[in-house]
């Protein structure tokens, strides 16, 4: 057991935990943040995406020990922001949400992209989302949603 300290959704937290435990499990089990999903457990599907110091990371691959001193944002925290409101609205209006299991990860990937590139092209969007699998939508509606979010959210990113 090790004491790990980090910022989680804007708050300082400390947890006494086996540092090899996956960040995903710590978030879901110890902090009850179940918006973070497990789709593959091997870093391939993106359902477990979180932001670590503004970078998108698969939390199923990250031992919580590596979270020490980092700033971590999950969908549960991000969903309280103005940026989220714009992204959510765009996803809704494009009909981009079907079963929803990939969506928290997609939203995080969208934020991570727009944060770096507020005005992405379609190809840049596809590239940025390529680490997040969706089995329901065929992706086109999600790509349109990101385009629409970028357009509506001008100035936010």
């Amino acid at each position: 057991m090790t004491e790990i300290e980090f910022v989680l959704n804007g708050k300082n937290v400390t947890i006494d935990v086996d540092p090899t435990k996956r960040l995903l499990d710590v978030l879901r089990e110890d902090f009850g943040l179940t918006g973070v999903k497990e789709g593959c457990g091997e870093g391939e599907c993106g359902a477990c995406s979180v932001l670590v110091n503004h970078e998108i990371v698969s939390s199923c691959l990250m031992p919580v020990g590596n979270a020490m001193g980092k700033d971590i944002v999950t969908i549960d925290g991000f969903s309280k922001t103005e940026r989220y409101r714009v992204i959510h609205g765009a996803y809704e209006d494009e009909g981009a949400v079907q079963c929803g299991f990939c969506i928290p990860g997609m939203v995080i990937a969208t934020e991570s992209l727009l944060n770096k590139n507020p005005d992405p092209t379609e190809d840049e969007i596809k590239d940025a989302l390529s680490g997040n699998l969706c089995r329901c939508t065929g992706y086109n509606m999600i790509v349109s949603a990101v385009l629409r979010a970028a357009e509506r959210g001008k100035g936010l990113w």
Partner: protein
Amino acid sequence: MSDISRSINKQDTNAKTSGSIEYISDMKIEGALHARTLRSTMARARITNIEFPEIPTGYYIVDRSDVPGMNRVKIIFDDMPVFAEEEVRHIGEPILLVVGEDRAVIKEIIDGIKVEYEPLVPEFGYVNSVIHYDYEKGDGEKYFKDGSRIITGEYKTGYQEHIYLEPQGIIGIFEDGKSTVIGSMQCPYYIKNAVVQALGIENDKVRIQQAATGGAFGGKEEFPSLIGCQVAVASMKIGRPVRLIYDRVEDIESTTKRHPSLIKFKAAVDEDNNIRAMKVHVSLDSGAYIGLSGVVLQRAMIAASGVYTIDNLSVSGDVFETNTVPNGAFRGFGAPQMFFAIEMFINHVAQELGEDNLEFRSRHLAKQGEATSTGGHFRDPIIMNKMIDKVMEMSDYKTKRKQYSAKDDFRGIGMSWYLHGCGFTGSGEQKHIKAVVRLRKEKDNTVTVLAANTEMGQGAFTTLRKIAAGVLEIPVERVIYNNPDTDLVPDSGPTVASRTIMIVGGLIARAALKLKEQWVDGEEILIEERYKQPDYVEWDDETLTGDAYPAYSWGVNVAEVEVDKATYEVNIRNLWGVYDIGKAIDERIIIGQIEGGLLQGVAYGTIEVMDTKDGRIRQRNVTDYIIPTACDCAPVETVIMDNPFPLGPYGAKGAGELPLVGGAPAVALAIENAIGKKVMKIPATPEYIMELLEND
């Protein structure tokens, strides 16, 4: 009144984007224990002994000796055990559960259990037929003897794995003599019937509740009945709730997949280049247990003549049992296999006759009033000609086809034509399902839809609410549809077979009409509707003849591809589709179904490779079973043409499965056009394309 097709927002989008909706693995259930499955490592063997390590207190083994009722999962045949008995029949077959508080300890226990096997000889080929069906239309035998030209073809299709993004998961709770099962599922009443049989208790002592379901595509049709029984047995034995949540590796290793198939055709062609008679045989690999394979086989067989009218048709099929993981329901249910095969075959026949494929196919295309494959009738207008013209115009098909055929530049374009029978085959709805729905008008003038159909991303809650609200002429916000709970809703049947909108939506519309007539503000009113088969449907279960489906949805796709000259990878450049689903209840939802289904179909035909070695699935995770990413999605252009079905709600027919069916044949035909070789199997991998090009 505004057009029903105009899209509205779904009720659950907010909870899904914010991550607050609870899937089964997100639910906190007081006192719940974890479970993990010990599985067979042998494809076929007798279990001679199981040696256990010391089991700490608070940890439990649950196996077949704990099943109080029948140790069989009720599907169609009672052939699959809840927990393995003396003989295991596939790698990954569940033998027992280890249950307890700490997952690490559970894993240690599992690793410590030693199962001794006496190996038996496994079978992996098309050898042991366990179901055989055939049917006959007309009398074609003479055409195979009268000197007609005989053309044959043999086609193969591979596995397809659902990769619903949320793996299987289920929780069992046993309290006060009552078993409750909550989980990710399509068919609450299937699980209910299965649990009743496994526990051997009264019907009203079993309650099934659907949790938010993260995709299913058929994969959560019959499989959850197995794990539902397991957690029901475990929670009853232990007296505490038991959670069984699969990880991806376990899900791929042990859950159902699309049946691999082998399909053979023989056509007799007369001097006018018309197919006079055709013989078709379908072989399906069911894996170790039959499950739904017989029904899948029927749907494949009924699709044997595709969208074409063949006057003399002789179709047979077999389900072969093998010692591999059982196969089962997957969006399309036998049709994707057959439509790949028939679309290739028809094109290959045209090619062999030296005919223009468009001309040849058009001449054989079914028309209203003609007999279906099983001798029923296409009663409703068929607008395929209009649809085909439209898709050719959108894609510039003719020009490109000519251009790509002339040049050796590895670009190609292909077009598929297909249909999908809506609802259960034959008299299934009438005889087996007997759907019931209720509408309850509450005192506050909201209306609750009481039905067992599930939302799994396809938008059922939204479209069904729209139908009720539309008929009642009330705002859709006043219609409520909750996740089904078998204690609260009647059995309106499973959420499968493209039946939800047409059949269940139809019942809701009829109930809403009655409710509207009886409406009194401020009072509670309950309306019930039961399914009645349309009078015109006649079906003979024995001979498989008559009207196999009350209605058909139709589709055409064009795919444009470029095959990489160095790697032989297939790059999908563009996809087009035109569809007749009667009437779209919500256009955006339908387009979502179409785009998602089409990509699944295209990937089935190209990149989704799954195979077995000595009975073991070789792909372990999404790292090696590749599904499309955002970078693999081509631009899709879709047109939905109205062709209202008189008995469907607002004219709607089925739409859930249809879009998957046309993807693989369209792409395979485009690949043929690109490389100038016949594609005889899917997935058409780079290795296969290389083989075709090298075997010149």
